[in-house]
């Protein structure tokens, strides 16, 4: 009896590991790494890994916000524009008032992002406008406001303080602050959605809004929170973006929303809402970044990059879907046999 129990536990632990959505992504990532490593064995060198993590940090931060929105059954197309507006704001504040300390600067940009997310959230939660429409509108609205804010000009490196530009580059325990910020965001958000009622409410309204109402989840409020977080994270990313690329221009982060959505797709987040996890999204962002980093290494012309990226997303999508469908079918069959 005991032995059987033990065996079952081991079996179930193992199969639940395999069953996780992320598993197929990890396998795909490994498959993809083989030719890259053959071509360039030091692709996984510490130095290059650090570069990759640096590159993926901002993407991961914003993708997690996007993930929450998709999880709750929506989509946020405005994140790119929010980054532009907040990044521009941070740059301009830094130029106008160099004395403002960097953490304050990031808080300002995050706060502005929060307000922009709040606007999205109000429209979605209480205006009852579908998220995709709301954010399609605010995508161009916020982008336009960025131009208005900046008057069409740039903020470039020499107009910003060295401490601001230097901030994401500061090394701490061999890892840059930019990466640390991303790690913190990942941990906080992971804990938040796993260990708080609000976090679980995201799953509830995405999975079954009617049932969510029956158990007392406030749908409007939850949607509002989701957009606030997405805005906040995009705002934080905006402040970091300007510092990292040492310039704030009006077109910054154009099309970035698609990158974040792609990270979620790669990470196995269901578009119907209610399923997915932070680890998957982080892996998705990592995969996307690695892909971009690896193409030059395997001497693929930059003109091929878009195509390869598209193919990889498609393959991951197909694998995710097929694995998921097989799994469900198998479980059903098993259940019936057991009966």
């Amino acid at each position, binding site marked *: 009896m005991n032995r059987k129990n033990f065996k079952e536990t081991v079996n*179930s632990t193992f199969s*639940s590991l395999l069953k996780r959505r992320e598993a197929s992504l990890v396998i795909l990532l490994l498959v993809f790494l083989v030719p890259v490593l053959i071509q360039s064995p030091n692709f996984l060198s510490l130095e290059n890994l650090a570069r990759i993590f640096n590159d993926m940090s901002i993407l991961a931060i914003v993708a997690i916000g996007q993930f929450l929105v998709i999880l709750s059954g929506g989509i946020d197309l405005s994140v790119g524009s929010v980054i532009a507006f907040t990044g521009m704001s941070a740059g301009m504040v830094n130029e106008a008032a160099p004395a403002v300390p960097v953490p304050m600067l990031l808080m300002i940009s995050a706060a502005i992002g929060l307000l922009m997310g709040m606007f999205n959230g109000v429209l979605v939660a209480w205006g009852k406008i579908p998220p995709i429409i709301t954010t399609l509108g605010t995508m161009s609205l916020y982008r336009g406001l960025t131009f208005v804010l900046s008057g069409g000009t740039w903020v470039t490196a020499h107009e910003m303080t060295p401490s601001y530009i230097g901030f994401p580059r500061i090394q701490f325990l061999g890892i840059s602050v930019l990466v640390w910020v991303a790690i913190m965001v990942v941990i906080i958000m992971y*804990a938040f959605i*796993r*260990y*708080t*009622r609000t976090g*679980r409410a995201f*799953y*509830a309204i995405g*999975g*079954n809004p*009617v*049932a*969510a*109402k*029956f*158990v*007392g*989840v*406030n749908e409007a409020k939850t949607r509002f929170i989701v957009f606030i977080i997405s805005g906040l994270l995009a705002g934080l990313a905006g402040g970091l973006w300007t510092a990292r690329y040492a310039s704030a221009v009006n077109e910054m982060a154009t099309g970035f929303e698609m990158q974040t959505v792609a990270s979620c797709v790669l990470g196995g987040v*269901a578009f119907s809402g*209610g*399923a997915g996890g932070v680890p998957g999204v982080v892996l998705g962002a990592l995969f996307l970044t690695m892909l971009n980093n690896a193409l030059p290494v395997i001497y693929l012309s930059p003109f091929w990059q878009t195509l390869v990226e598209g193919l990889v997303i498609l393959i991951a999508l197909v694998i995710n879907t097929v694995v998921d469908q097989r799994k*469900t*079918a198998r*479980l*059903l*069959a098993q*259940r*019936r*046999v057991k*009966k």
Partner: protein
Amino acid sequence: MSQVILEVRHLMKFFPGIKALDDVHMDVRAGEIHALIGENGAGKSTLVKILTGVYTPTSGSVILEGKEMKFSNALDAQQAGIVAIHQEASMFPELSVTENIYMGHHLYSPHSRRLDWKAMHKETRKLLDSLQLDIAPDTLVKNLGIAQRHMVEIAKALSLDAKVVIMDEPTSALTSREVEDLYRIVRKLKEEGKSIIFISHKFEEIFEICDTYTVLRDGRYIGSGYLKDTDRDSIIRMMIGRSVDQMFPKKELVVGKPLLEVKELCQTGNFTNVSFTLHEGEILGFFGLVGAGRSEVMRAIFGIDPCSSGSIMMDGEIFSPSSPGVAMARGIALVPEDRQKQGLILAMSISRNIALPCLASLSRHGVVNRKKAAAYAEKYGSQMEIRAAGWHVDADTLSGGNQQKVVLSKWIGTQPRILIMDEPTKGIDVATKAAVHEFVSEMASQGMGVILVSSELPEVLGMSDRIVVMHEGEVTAVLDRADAGSENVMAAAIGEVQEAVR
């Protein structure tokens, strides 16, 4: 007599253009099982949603233990001690059983402000054990069967330690065995001094387990009392204002030539070697426990899912239903078991719903004749006596019974030769049920072959010419009307193989 724990006074609920509740009263005492009775659309579910804080009433009061309650959401009601198992599916398919049980009131660990998953899993395990359910707490609900899902809903209600438990048609998806389990649980709750509000359209179970009742009609309070002081007929009269004379108006008929012959049909994981024959003018009952695979067989015949082997013959010719369109072209119609998801286009008008499967014959070269379509819908809709503000209203504003009538109208219109009905009377009131039975008989007498899948034994026994009994994906008995009794049918349904009659 125990004291009144829940009082409802002058309750009104308006939806734009509809009075769903109009001055409703109800008294529920501690430790009683209170039946809430009414036709489809009488306002039962609406009342439940108000009691559980999902809707706010237009006016009137809900008084719990002498205190007037103002719930702003479902959580308030839960905390006050009222929980419900709702009529609509209210599960989160992508989440675990534990989470489904605790959604909205997750447990925090005592010393920190984080959710305590270990504790929740442990509690869930206990709850499931007490319900004798063999499910792991971390199973995703999407991998559970209908009956199991229902049990999880019940577990959820239990986890809340409520004073009042409301069950809105809890048995409509269960069959005998699970229903017995449910009764056991309900009685246990009663013994613990809890009050249960029980909504059902099945009089047998109302009289079996309930103590008191309240009847609603058209959103209005009609009356209440002790069930032991009344009888079925008077309740029916309160419900619909008249009596229903005949529940199973079965016409004795000469059965014609074979229409549909199914031989050794298999579908991996769902059913094996299913064989039966349906004749013209015959009502063929299909009985079995939930999960017996009846629906799957019907879906396969209608071309929804493919079969792995076996053959289907119509009029003596091999026929392979590769899609519902193909099956329909051969004169097969299916009234599916889930009317909300499969039977109806909820956000579409009644008339368009009815015309939908017949559009081809209502159009020329693919262009719809709109006048003809409207007339057609009205014709078949009025035949079924659908109650609605008009033919243009959307199907989702109708009550369950009226929705079912729309589904039936939709399929009679196609003038099928074979009408398959999967649980056609699930969740509909007596009057409508009688009407459906009447209709089934009528169809058969016109020479149509009818397959009646039902989990209600009296219905199957009352209506069928022959009965096919399934158990775990296999046919365990085919009985003639004369030979079929509740014992042998039930025995076959739980797997005791009988000699096949035909």
